[in-house]
């Protein structure tokens, strides 16, 4: 029944735990005081709109940013950007960044002794279509070590940044790959305490998105809500 399904969905706690000792650098950075609630009218405040003209046609294909093809497992990642009412958010700017197939970011502060790939910069962006759809072509990022604790490794992930229609729908998150054995050891993934909510961060392998003889396919939908709560739907436009 639709009613019982809705009840189940509302029971999911999708908030991250900001002050999360397992993720060491939260200690001095997570706000310690309660957030001050703003009047509800600010939920309707519109956010910035980014036009197609801001983008290059190749921005959504991360395998086309070098002189040749990057190494690694070529993948297609696509999905829809929705509001909490399930309505597609069209014209949403989606920005992504990731490590290369060896688990190395093209960034001066990444000291992981894994090879850089001269043909992979690891940044991309696109704007959702009328149905709220986005699509990227890239290579599957590698897992990599980090200094949080002894033998700490991040599961493979792609960083996602999204703007909705409303200012409060802004979201920065990470998309993970199904079945990663590092999930249970990763304090960033585990900072979402509800296991059902963590599943919302994991893409689905999708044979229908896979392109024969060319690339594996994953789907991942993103739902944008209000800051500090996932309570009431935003007004439709």
């Amino acid at each position, binding site marked *: 029944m639709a009613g019982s399904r809705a009840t189940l969905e509302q029971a999911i706690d*999708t908030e991250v735990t900001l002050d999360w000792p397992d993720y060491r650098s939260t200690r001095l950075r*997570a706000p*310690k005081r309660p*957030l001050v*609630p703003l009047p509800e009218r600010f939920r309707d405040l519109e956010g910035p709109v980014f036009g197609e003209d801001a983008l290059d046609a190749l921005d959504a294909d991360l395998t086309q940013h070098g002189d040749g093809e990057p190494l690694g497992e070529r993948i297609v990642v696509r999905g829809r950007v929705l509001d909490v009412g399930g309505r597609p958010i069209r014209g949403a700017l989606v920005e992504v960044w990731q490590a290369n197939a060896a688990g190395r970011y093209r960034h001066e*502060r990444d000291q992981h002794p894994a090879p850089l790939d001269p043909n992979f910069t690891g940044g991309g962006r696109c704007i959702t279509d009328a149905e709220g759809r986005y699509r990227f072509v890239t290579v599957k990022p590698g897992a990599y070590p980090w200094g949080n604790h002894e033998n700490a490794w991040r599961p493979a992930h792609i*960083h996602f940044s999204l703007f909705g229609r409303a200012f409060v729908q802004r979201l920065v998150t*990470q998309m993970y790959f199904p079945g990663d054995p590092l999930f249970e050891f990763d304090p960033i993934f585990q900072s979402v305490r509800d296991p059902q909510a*963590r599943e919302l961060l994991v893409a689905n392998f999708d044979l229908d998105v896979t392109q024969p003889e060319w690339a594996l396919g994953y789907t991942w939908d993103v739902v944008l809500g209000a800051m500090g709560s996932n309570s009431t739907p935003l007004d439709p436009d």
Partner: protein
Amino acid sequence: MLPTTPSQTVGPFYTLGLCREPAHELIPPSDPSAISLGGRLLDGEGEPIDGVIEIWDHVARRWGRSGTDGHGRFAFTIGKPGRAGDDAARLDVYVFARGLLKHQLTRIYFPDERAANAADPVLSALDTADRATLIARADGDGLRFDIRMQGEGATVFFAV
């Protein structure tokens, strides 16, 4: 109702995706009304944070983004925002950083708007010390606004 997708930290390497080109000038610096707005993003011990700041002028519909440098410094060129109704002129601000699992919302109000600030329904509901964390201060020809995540003088952050 669908559950919202949880937030995750922006991490240390956000420039690859979020700073592909400069976006810190909301208006051209050559504009006669241009104002320099700078500040630092600081942790609970006053140390600089590697993060990214986004600001939004909802009246003029101007948006900008600045990563912080090794000293936690961010910098924008803005035009003074207009007022809307009883609300004092302000910029809406998001803070993203490694070690911050969800971005935080704050506001920048303007020091030359004493009467409007005193009447602003959000600002006037705060105590004096908290209110002071949201008002930029004059700094030479420009404005200065530091963001402190914790501790003495911690910036007020909002939920909506």
